[in-house]
């Protein structure tokens, strides 16, 4: 049983780790390391896995925990962190050096800056959307209907495009 949980956990982390890290990056202040928040999310996933019920897709469950921990971290970003999680086994490999700076990179920086200017919920929804998460799954993450999410995404995309142009 314990082995099963470990396998499920490792497979889930393996298939979502980069995505979780990218989301964490957008909830980290410029002077903080996104790795700290990322590790906090992983620890919460591991802690919560035994209580995971198959009522929802495991990826939806992962996004819920990720967004909840990121939002909570954002609320507390003004206060000093209590205890940082330090996982030595995690290594963030920077691949940027291997890619020559190009137009895409410039656009990506602009997109990132614009996303950072969005408010908490808008930011979470657009990040999941850009990561390719379906409307249905995003709706389950937030506890809202697909229609509401679709409308919100449409509005947020327009806002994002305006921010990028400005």
């Amino acid at each position: 049983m314990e082995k099963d949980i470990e396998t499920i956990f490792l497979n889930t982390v393996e298939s979502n780790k980069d995505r979780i890290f990218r989301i964490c990056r957008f909830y980290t202040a410029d002077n903080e390391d996104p790795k700290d928040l990322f590790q906090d999310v992983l620890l919460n996933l591991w802690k919560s896995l035994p209580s995971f019920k198959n009522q929802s897709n495991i990826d939806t469950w992962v996004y819920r925990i990720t967004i909840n921990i990121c939002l909570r971290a954002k609320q507390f970003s003004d206060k000093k962190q209590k205890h940082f999680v330090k996982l030595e086994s995690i290594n963030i490999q920077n691949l940027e050096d291997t890619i020559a700076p190009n137009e895409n990179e410039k656009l990506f920086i602009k997109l990132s800056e614009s996303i950072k200017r969005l408010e908490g919920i808008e930011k979470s929804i657009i990040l999941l959307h850009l990561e390719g998460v379906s409307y249905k799954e995003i709706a389950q993450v937030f506890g809202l209907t697909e229609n509401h999410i679709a409308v919100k995404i449409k509005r947020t995309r327009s806002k994002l495009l305006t921010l990028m142009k400005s």
Partner: protein
Amino acid sequence: MLNDELERIWQYSTKAESVKFNKTEFLTDLNMQLKRFDRILKNRDRREIIAAGLVILIFGSGAFFFTGILSKIGMVLGALYGVLVIYVFKNVKKHRPTNSALPIKDYLVEYRQYLAKERNLLANVIYWYLLPPFIACLLFFIGQNMSITQLAVYMLIIFCLYAFIFFLNKLGVKKSFEPLIKKLDDAIDDIEKIE
């Protein structure tokens, strides 16, 4: 810029960074961290119980040793105060949200409720944290047949100390809790506006 260009630009980020981990070490690492947090929580609980135990022991034995009915009542009140403090701390901790797998809105609402309880605790510190030991001290000193001047000096010192604690707590409510609760309210409002 076309709408679907956003996805194309976003794809760049997937090439920028990658997370690597050693599976075996990773699990050991996680379990060690969980144990560490567990230890921190247990130690904190232990410290609180020891502190309350000391208060109960000191005041309880005071009730036995000191003469004068008012002093005895003061000491008993002091001991009961130790029990009250531990109860209040334990009670508020019970409400701390632990299920981070809840839908976002539910989680934020639960977190807000918990913070509101903590805020109320600090805002009402005068009633549950300051007033009971103040009354206990007052009764104790009166029971010791002190002169009015002595009593006034002692009570003034205690009053100044309590006033300092009271304002520190008020400041904590204003500087830490109110802005946090406001942020959570805004986030909850955002979600409600979508609905």
